[in-house]
């Protein structure tokens, strides 16, 4: 597998597409921090929380990883170069996991670039107070978000390996990533509904009475835990919940990512092993 990884790395190291992806990550990350800084200074009313910007990359990582995985698998299928790897004696598992490993490396390096740019620009501009997390919590969040990147890479790798060419791989991966983020957002919207609503009541005697009626959309109890688990289970949803700082059970983050990584790798390698190649 080491040989395949080195070869795949050689193939991608000088590719324009990879450099463009990294430059976009740097620019987008810098733009989000600067935008937060100027809005804070201009309005003076709203303080940007750095942590939300810090993990703002989570939902945005999907397209980066999707494009990379689709490129990696798609070109191999389209040019037939996958054959070269198998004919010269590599197993299908080796091929699958070397591509997965490279996708993970690409995803993690993009995420780290984002985090570094955020840290370098965000902390001096917005201050450490805006992080509103302890160092331990911060480390846990970073670890969980990086694990989410690995989970997203595993999902994209599985989908791209099922395709037959570059275009279908790209469509499949981008479509799935978009669907995961949308589903995650919809689920999170429901999850984020407050238990009590904030309302005002007018009457002849006392014109303004503040009251807090029960929110019928609020989900509580076991179903709430299940919903949170579901959100964390889709890497897109986990990106949304991380970005919104909405996690109630922190353990769900690494647990769900680990489950996604394990299951998609197992399914992906098995289905790739059985696939009829041309």
């Amino acid at each position: 597998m080491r040989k395949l990884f080195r070869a795949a790395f050689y193939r991608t190291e000088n590719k324009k597409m990879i450099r463009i992806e990294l430059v976009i990550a740097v620019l987008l990350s810098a733009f989000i921090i600067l935008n937060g800084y100027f809005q804070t200074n201009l309005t003076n009313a709203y303080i940007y929380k750095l942590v939300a910007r810090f993990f703002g990359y989570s939902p945005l990582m999907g397209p980066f990883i999707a494009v990379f995985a689709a490129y990696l698998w798609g070109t191999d299928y389209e040019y037939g170069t996958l054959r070269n790897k198998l004919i010269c004696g590599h197993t299908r598992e080796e091929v699958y996991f070397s591509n997965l490993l490279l996708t993970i490396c690409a995803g993690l390096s993009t995420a780290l670039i984002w985090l570094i740019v955020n840290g370098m620009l965000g902390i001096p501009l917005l201050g450490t107070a805006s992080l509103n997390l302890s160092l331990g919590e911060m480390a846990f969040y970073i670890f969980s978000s990086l694990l989410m990147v690995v989970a997203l890479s595993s999902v994209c790798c599985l989908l791209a390996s099922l395709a037959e060419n570059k275009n279908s791989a790209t469509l499949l991966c981008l479509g799935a990533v978009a669907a995961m983020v949308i589903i995650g957002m919809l689920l999170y919207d429901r999850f984020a509904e407050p238990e009590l609503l904030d309302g005002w009541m007018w009457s002849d005697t006392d014109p303004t009475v503040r009251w807090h009626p029960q929110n019928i959309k609020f989900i509580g109890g076991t179903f709430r835990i299940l919903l949170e688990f579901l959100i964390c289970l889709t890497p897109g949803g986990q990106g949304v919940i991380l970005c919104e700082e909405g996690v109630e059970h922190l353990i769900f983050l690494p647990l769900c990512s680990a489950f996604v990584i394990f299951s998609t790798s197992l399914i992906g390698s098995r289905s790739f092993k059985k696939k009829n190649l041309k």
Partner: protein
Amino acid sequence: MNYILQTNSLTKKYKNFQALNGLTMNVPKGSIYGFVGKNGAGKTTLIRLICGLQEPTSGSFSLYGIRNDSKDIIKSRRRMGAVVETPSIYMDMTAEENLKHQYLILGLPSFDCIQELLKLVGLDNTGEKKAKNFSLGMKQRLGIAIALAGDPDFLVLDEPVNGLDPQGIVEMRELILKLNREKQITVLISSHILDELSRLATHYGIIDNGRMVKELSAEELDTVCRKCVRMEVTDTSTLARVLDSMNLEYKIISATTADVFAKINVTQLTVVLAKENCEVLSMQEKDESLESYYISLVGGDNNA
């Protein structure tokens, strides 16, 4: 005989289509094995199976004596190179980069032999030109160079001259002959172009509907396709006696038909036969090629 590849009742079935139907073939070591068949006869399917791209539905094959269900089949595949259908190359890389990539896949310690390999296939002057800008012949040759990267002793080429211009075909033929003669590489070629194949092959396998119709050596084909005069006479025993007395080579086909493998003086032979009370009913010069032999075996409904 020492065989590189042997298949035994190999079958491959897709959903509604049986691509291989109990195919049995033997590729001798050191040969150039021409694999002939119609479109959809199962040539590429067989190549995909031996390359490990697909699994057979039933039956087996052995590569260097190692059966496909053995774990060691992966090791034996390391000794082969293949170009299946289209050359497997990265279009956004140069010829040298493509070979470097393949060297890394193989885990070869240095890139020293790349220039030699490029020279062997005639691509040593392509410089920074990307493979997407290569002609079809150049792409085919690069595909072969990649297949040769691991120094294999068995090369599988699926339709290597398909779409090439006459110059490209000649170059490809010379390259294959060079690899076979100078490097002792056994070559399995599937091709539609029977005339071209007949200039190369030392052995033939004729496949139809997923089955091996005939497997023969070039010598055997020569015998079958020898230029001859097919004679129809009233009595072949008399004809045989006369031909023996004239020291001519012949083969009795039936009670009234015989093939004579020599240039004969028709008048002289007819006169002698007439004296022996043997009438000549017809005489026809036969010059069978691989193509006509192939058609006689599988029928001429479709093109090869």
